[in-house]
């Protein structure tokens, strides 16, 4: 069975990637997950410098989902390279570094520093975090902004460049196309949906940041639809995500058009989810006599189910 896929010149052994922001810097999970067995590990978003993030409360549960407003707390790119990357390399993780910036120059600087570091497999550009005011999503919500960040980073690195797209726009597919035109090797989608929850007794927002990003199974059908829309307009690989909880969910995203997937929120619920997903995918390939998993990508059959009987 061949579960592998390519993103630019990078080969991933399988399509299961730990989602950025949901897996620490990877090393936190080394006791419970064989990091080398994952297709990739997308580490927590990194700016040039350390950040404290937002005050708690930072998460709140919602029906089949959760809101978060962590605020990209992080150790900065230099401490990451010195303190976390060596262990990730030693454990043979395929490291995808999620990079952030408040300015175009910061994205470029962080990308340049990581390109010189040993053991980084790809760069995911966070242009979609809904929880910080400056930079980031302002690039991700504008087509010229998306094009500018991707092409600027493209110029300074030979690593695969994967912009992570926000769903908080009218037409995600046009952003995928802008990213492809700017030289992206793949796109990942979706980041979280901007959302809000209020305590009716205190009349206060449940998050200190007032608003946060919705993730989890609650968003899955919207994310699947967005992957499907992007698949129709770009040729580059798509990494799909949004509430994946079972191997059927992985396959749903792939059939909609994703070449790989990321799992985030459900990894909180079950940190041992990865072997279950892998077993389920292999079982599906057996049942459907598939030798190459990539053969299911974008195979959703949208032909009419039956002959139309309603005459217009």
């Amino acid at each position: 069975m061949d579960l592998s896929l390519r993103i630019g010149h990078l080969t991933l052994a399988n399509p299961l990637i730990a989602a950025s922001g949901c897996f620490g810097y990877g090393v936190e999970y080394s006791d419970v997950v064989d990091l080398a067995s994952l297709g990739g590990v997308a580490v927590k978003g990194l700016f040039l410098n350390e950040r404290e993030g937002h005050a708690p409360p930072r998460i709140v549960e919602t029906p089949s989902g959760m809101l978060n407003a962590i605020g990209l707390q992080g150790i900065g790119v230099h401490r990451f390279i010195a303190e976390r990357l060596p262990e990730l390399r030693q454990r043979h993780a395929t490291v995808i570094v999620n990079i952030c910036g408040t300015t175009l120059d910061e994205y470029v600087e962080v990308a340049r520093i990581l390109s010189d570091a040993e053991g980084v497999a790809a760069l995911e550009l966070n242009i979609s975090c809904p929880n910080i005011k400056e930079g980031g999503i302002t690039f991700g919500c504008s087509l010229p902004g998306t094009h500018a960040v991707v092409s600027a980073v493209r110029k300074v690195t030979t690593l695969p460049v994967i912009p992570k797209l926000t769903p908080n726009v009218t037409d995600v597919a046009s952003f995928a196309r802008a990213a492809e035109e700017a030289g992206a090797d793949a796109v990942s989608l979706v980041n979280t949906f901007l959302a809000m929850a209020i305590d009716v007794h205190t009349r206060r927002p449940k998050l200190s940041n007032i608003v946060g990003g919705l993730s989890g199974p609650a968003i899955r059908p919207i994310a699947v639809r967005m992957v499907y829309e992007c698949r129709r307009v770009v040729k580059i690989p798509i990494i799909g995500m949004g509430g994946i909880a079972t191997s059927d969910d992985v396959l749903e995203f792939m059939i909609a058009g994703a070449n790989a997937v990321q799992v985030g929120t459900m990894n909180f619920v079950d940190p041992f989810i990865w072997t279950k997903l892998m077993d389920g995918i292999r079982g599906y390939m057996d049942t459907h006599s598939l030798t190459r998993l990539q053969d299911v990508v974008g195979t959703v059959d949208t032909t009419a189910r039956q002959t139309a009987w309603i005459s217009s």
Partner: protein
Amino acid sequence: MPVDVDAAVVTNRRLPGDYNVIAFDAAAIAGSARPGQFVMIKTSRGLDPLLRRPFSIFELLRDRNGVPTGISIFNKQVGAGTSMLAEIEPGARLQILGPLGRPFEPVGPPAAAWMIAGGVGLAPFVTLAEALAARRTRSRLFYGARRAEELHCIELFESLGVEIVLATEDGTRGAHGRITVPLEAALRERPLGEPVKLYVCGPTPMMRACGALSYTHGRACDVSLEQVMGCGLGGCYSCVVPARSRDGGPPHHTRTCIDGPVFDAQRVVWESVSAH
């Protein structure tokens, strides 16, 4: 190394004041648990509630030969997850991930250990009391609740030789008022030449007050913090508290799950800790 156990409920003992004690078959967790560690429990089989909940390991259950067979938790109904746990019946199975977190470090003689518990904050102290008894450390439990009916499981501590000091806010048992009143009196009485370490778990204002008392009286004080947790493994960064580094550096948002739940009280920036 934490494991995820599909654990059967053995007993669910309901107690007054919306408390209950649930015993689970979970030998793999019990075998490696250390005092004050916690577990993450999925309170339903489905997606509602979605996330696991953190619980201190209350008791380590053993068979007749002393071999660990499971754990219990001390539950108080406060929301959807804890209410489901209040109703759970023997035979039901839940996913339990653990043991997790930085444990208490039990002091040894000649130092004494004082445990200060408020309400459901009693939860991490049975395992600590056992570890202290094993080291022959003299220990005392200061335990406060709103009223007499909400003081639970004192016999577990008595059987380990722990001296008991009680307080209730309505005065129905023990000292009238907060537990910090008898604690402060005991701190005043204790000669400086007799070392004692404080271990605290309870509502945030109580822990803050105990931290201040321990500082005033020059005694070491560890607190066990509870924050809203997403994963319990350090992945989500939701359970942070502002804490100074161990060498006294400036405060940073520090994860309760893997850098705690046990912290030196003097590291915590109490005025910025969300109370609940």
